């Protein structure tokens, strides 16, 4: 139910009834990706096969990697009489073919609309299961009419922790819940922890499963992912670090560990740009009692140096940032550090209090910057007419906007399906900011060069 605050906000904003060119994806997509980041896990959608097919093709066109999502293949009669039989048959078939370590079960609109009692079906399945030692099944409720892909992602991580985490002797290890970031981001986070000498469990970790090597042996399941025994151990980690300012006050994985196992929780913004990364580094310094390692210190130093080198090209340029709320928050924080003016930060998600979060992360964001949730690309385009941006930073779906405005698009986040290497875009840490900065400056320089009637080659 909407809170009073939400209803108030609703009145203020005059949205179109229809969503034209959405700036968000559907809930089970986030669930599938999160499940894919667990070792030996096969995602399974309870609903019609079209959902699995669409979600697979969408994730694949971004990652360019195999992505299996099983489905209970609802038909008209399952839609009427329930899909329990299909679900049980599907679980058995997936277990036999793939021998998974676990099955990640997410529901779709169809199953939720008819009110499937998934826990009951799963209990019946386990009770009558011919397979002894059947793989564990973690289920999460993700109808597309409730929330977005980001909600599906976070709820899945929460469900995984809720299912597996156990208490135990306190470990040195920390838990990191990175949110929906790129495969390269995940690798970089692991590298940062290695630099600190800090053992860490990332959940999920699809850095290998969704960006793997060619195969020199047949694989039923791609290697990589967070091992299940490490998820079990999350109940006894020394602290959890959770990225995403939008998770404040929500029942997230970190919040659960804190409540259930008294694991201290550090909720941070996505470490994009200098200050948000500094905050992350401070947490790691406190955790390890060590100063920032030299390699990271140097990365930060080089980044600051680069910002100085490039500031004359970007100062005062107007940017539209659009995408997932937490990603857009991080980008806004970073851009305002560089002297670029984020004239509009937009997300398709419904995020009450988002503007406050953005302004906390980016205190120097000019007051006239618009920060707006629940926007679609048609509305962003309408605002862009007035705002006259110099650059757009967002997913491939921002292409139409950038093309219409005649400005460059810096592709970040998800989905990137009109370029190669979407999974290797680095956003996080000083190194991520460095890459974003170089790309942004170069795009602006290229535009200037292309638009010049003379064709200067020395800029």
């Amino acid at each position: 139910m909407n809170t009073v605050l939400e209803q108030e906000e609703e009145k203020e904003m005059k949205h179109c009834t229809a969503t034209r060119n959405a700036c968000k994806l559907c809930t089970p997509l986030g669930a599938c990706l999160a499940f894919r980041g667990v070792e030996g896990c096969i995602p399974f959608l309870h609903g019609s096969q079209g959902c699995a097919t669409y979600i697979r093709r969408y994730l694949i066109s971004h990652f360019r990697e195999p992505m299996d999502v099983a489905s209970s293949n609802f038909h008209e009669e399952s839609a009427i009489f329930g899909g329990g039989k299909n679900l049980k048959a599907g679980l058995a078939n997936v277990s036999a073919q793939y021998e998974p370590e676990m099955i990640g079960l997410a529901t779709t609109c169809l199953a939720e609309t008819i009110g499937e009692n998934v826990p009951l079906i799963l209990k019946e399945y386990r009770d009558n299961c011919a397979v002894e030692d059947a793989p564990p099944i973690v289920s999460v409720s993700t109808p597309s009419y409730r929330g977005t892909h980001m909600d599906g992602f976070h709820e899945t991580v929460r469900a995984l922790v809720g299912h597996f985490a156990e208490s135990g002797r306190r470990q040195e290890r920390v838990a990191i819940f990175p949110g929906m970031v790129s495969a390269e981001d995940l690798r970089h986070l692991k590298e940062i922890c290695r630099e600190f000498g800090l053992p860490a469990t990332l959940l999920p970790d699809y850095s290998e499963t969704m960006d793997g090597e060619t195969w020199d042996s047949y694989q039923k399941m791609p290697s990589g992912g967070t091992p299940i025994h490490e998820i079990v151990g999350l109940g006894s980690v020394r602290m959890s670090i959770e990225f995403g300012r939008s998770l404040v006050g929500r029942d997230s994985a970190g919040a659960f560990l804190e409540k259930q196992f008294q694991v201290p929780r550090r909720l941070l913004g996505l470490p994009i740009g200098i200050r948000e990364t500094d905050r992350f580094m401070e947490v790691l310094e406190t955790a390890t009692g060590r100063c920032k390692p030299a390699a990271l210190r140097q990365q930060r130093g080089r980044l600051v140096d680069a910002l100085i080198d490039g500031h004359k090209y970007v100062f005062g340029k107007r940017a539209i940032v659009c995408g997932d709320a937490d990603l857009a928050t991080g980008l806004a924080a970073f851009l305002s550090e560089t002297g670029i003016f984020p004239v509009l930060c937009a997300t398709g998600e419904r995020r009450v209090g988002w503007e406050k979060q953005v302004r906390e992360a980016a205190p120097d964001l000019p007051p006239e910057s618009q920060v707006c949730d629940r926007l679609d690309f048609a509305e962003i385009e309408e605002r862009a007419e007035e705002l006259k941006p110099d650059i757009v930073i967002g997913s491939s779906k921002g292409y139409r906007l950038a093309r219409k405005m005649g400005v460059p698009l810096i592709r970040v986040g998800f989905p990137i399906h009109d370029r190669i290497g979407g999974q290797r875009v680095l956003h996080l840490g000083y190194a991520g900011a460095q890459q974003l900065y170089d790309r942004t400056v170069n795009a602006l320089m290229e535009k200037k060069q292309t638009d010049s009637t003379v064709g200067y080659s020395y800029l």
Partner: protein
Amino acid sequence: MPTDIEMKNPDGIASSIPAEKIKEEMLKAYPAKTAKKRGKQILSNDPDTLPEVGANSRTVPGIMTQRGCTYAGCRGVVIGPIHDILHITHGPIGCGYYSWMTRRNLVRPEPGATNYLQYCMSTDMTEEQIVFGGEKKLKQAIQEAYDIFKPKAITIYATCPVGLIGDDVHAVAREMKETLGINVFAFSCEGYKGVSQSAGHHIANNGVFKHMVGLDNTPSEHPFTINMLGEYNIGGDAWEIDAVLKNCGIHVTATLSGDVKYDDICRAHNSALNVVMCHRSINYMAEMMEKKFGIPWFKVNFIGADATAKSMRKIAKYFENPALIARTEEVIAMEMAKLRPIRDAVKARCQGKKVALFVGGSRAHHYQELFRDIGMEVISAGYEFAHRDDYEGRRVLPNLKVDADSRNIEELTVEADPERFNPRKTEEMRRSLEESGFCFSDYTGMMADMRKGALIIDDISHHEMEKLIELTKPDIICSGIKDKFIIEKMGIPCKQLHSYDYGGPYASFSGAINFYQEVDRMLHTKIWKFVVPPWQKDPRLKARPTIAQKEKAPKKEEPQSFKRPAASGQAGE
């Protein structure tokens, strides 16, 4: 004719595995009931006896299928390409988002013409509408869409929850049609209907026929007019076909549906002939138009040089005009003269290589022609969502069992139009054409064109694809994006025939040249040398070119409670 699928092991020693043996290997991993069901969809071809394929049957849950849903077939495939009508998806956001410019059905609108393809309109249903109904929101969305865009027509597509909560999309459409005075119509294409996207094709055909075809009786000024049915202009195919036909003097009124306008479809019934490319997705339309307007139809194929020439001759002959026939021969001769040297050069490098195709409802058949042009051999093929008639030919239609899923989809009762029914050919003319080898209203299917012993796999799963690669090691596989990257991980080039891998066109003569060269490049690019495929590394696979069973990789240590289950033949069900 060889009846086995030949393969070469890395030492170059040829050996072969009978199709039956491959099938057995594929089915091993399945529980008994699943194996039995899948067994009906995997078989060894015999072009003379044409064994029965268990096609258009439900996919077993938990089997990794490539199939999509009814909504995808309706909104995504058949109607989506009509670029000047406004498409509104009634449902939560996912369905609309995923069908937003994801198919490469290209358009080239005339300057200033309307093109809505870049828009993805969705009612973006939330919990409130699921509980209290979404008709009000839909009505508002239609009104807004009209206010903003003033389109000629608006179409509405129902997604899974809409059917369940009982929103009457058709009533809303009727009401808004009256209110706005433009054509508004709806499709009940909920994803759970039917066994695959094929159900959506049928629903789309019905809607287009009921609400668009026949609205504009303005006769065409062209002497030789046809409609190209089941051509979706992926990568620009329809443009190539249009161009080569135009060169002969044949005018395509409407292409259903590729780079096509609303008005073109409304006047399609004035054409003299319907030709069918993709039999699966559009045969309903061809039949209904014949019944109502008397337009004959026959099957053509513009994929492959020889196939294109054959199809062009057939169309020219239909019009029985000597000048047209002569001009068509001229065009063919001209195009073939350009094509022949390129084809021969590519053929010299590709001859004897093996290909497997698993795609669509017609492409797995059509593309065999292109590979045949360059001397490559098809060892295995199958459709994703086709029916028995696409495999075995329309002769099976009278005895086809209508199951619950097919009965779900409305079969329109079509009668001859009292005023506009006009048989383009008299009985006598038809007979004389038939005597000279013409086949009206027929499709002989894919299997008759394939050799004995080739492996037919309907609705192939990931697991079966992997087994096929392991056992037969094709030189190239044609498939879609969902299995492309698994195939390439194993060192085998994969050509996507749904989207053409961002390439194309491949239709007609110039398209064929394009395809030959692309296959040549894919097969011979040096990157494959860096990939060590499993069978080169595993000594057991190398030593035994027959059936190689892969042992489980040694397992990593992990807590007792998370052991894998034993692969069981009787799990669940």
